[in-house]
């Protein structure tokens, strides 16, 4: 059991064998190679990729199939080889690999990067962000189009800076919703 400092959840403990190895890092974070995937039932289907090398680095992700059940993988033979998978055919999501989409949050709402999914081979724990050139998928797919958003999301954004206590707000909200015990995938 190792204790891990996280960006959003305080300290978490994890087993050494749940570590994920990104030999190439991720574009923009090439020197961050060790992560764990953290899942809270309450936050389903979100899965957090927390860096083991930088407590402040945590990607919020979601299984690609939860966003688009028809999603088709188009992984290069080179990437399949890096994951230790058969490069002659596309891997089966959920069977050969776990496939996650990185989420970004902007004023217009959350978006998902479907252009470059993160692939995890849970058998050898190798992982990478697959860059599929020529794919029609968007790197900023609108996760919840404007009209589907609950109304209360709007006034929050319009609130002046002073109305948001710098420390209290970011700390409280997510932690209340989460149990101390997290499942590390």
């Amino acid at each position: 059991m190792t204790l891990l400092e996280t960006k959003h959840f305080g300290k978490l403990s994890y087993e050494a064998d749940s570590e994920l190895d990104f030999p190439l890092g991720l574009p923009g974070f090439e020197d961050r190679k060790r992560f764990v995937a953290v899942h809270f039932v309450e936050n389903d289907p979100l899965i957090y990729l927390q860096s083991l090398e930088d407590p402040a680095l945590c990607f919020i992700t979601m299984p690609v199939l939860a966003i688009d059940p028809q999603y088709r993988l188009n992984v290069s033979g080179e990437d399949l080889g890096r994951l230790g998978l058969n490069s002659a055919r596309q891997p089966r999501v959920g069977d050969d690999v776990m496939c996650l989409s990185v989420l970004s949050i902007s004023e217009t709402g959350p978006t998902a990067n479907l252009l470059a999914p993160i692939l995890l081979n849970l058998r050898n724990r190798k992982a990478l962000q697959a860059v599929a050139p020529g794919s029609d998928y968007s790197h900023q797919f609108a996760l919840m189009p404007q009209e589907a958003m609950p109304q209360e999301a709007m006034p929050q954004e319009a609130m002046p800076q002073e109305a948001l206590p710098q420390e209290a707000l970011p700390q409280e909200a997510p932690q209340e919703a989460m149990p101390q015990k997290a499942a590390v995938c």
Partner: protein
Amino acid sequence: MMSRREGETILIGDDIEIVIARIGRTRVKVGIRAPRETPVIAREVKLIRDENLRAAGATAADLSSLIARLHPPA
């Protein structure tokens, strides 16, 4: 626009050289010689890098608002 055959070269300024190394059925292999300080990356890699930097900037407040949208209070 400029038409080139396999093995031919394009020069950009004094110190960038682009060679059409091989033309396949659906892919072209391009060799690029550029000064060390000029980054050479595929466009989609830059898109993804910028998107990852944006994603990594998510604050706890962003996360709360995302969770609230996924699980609106009943």
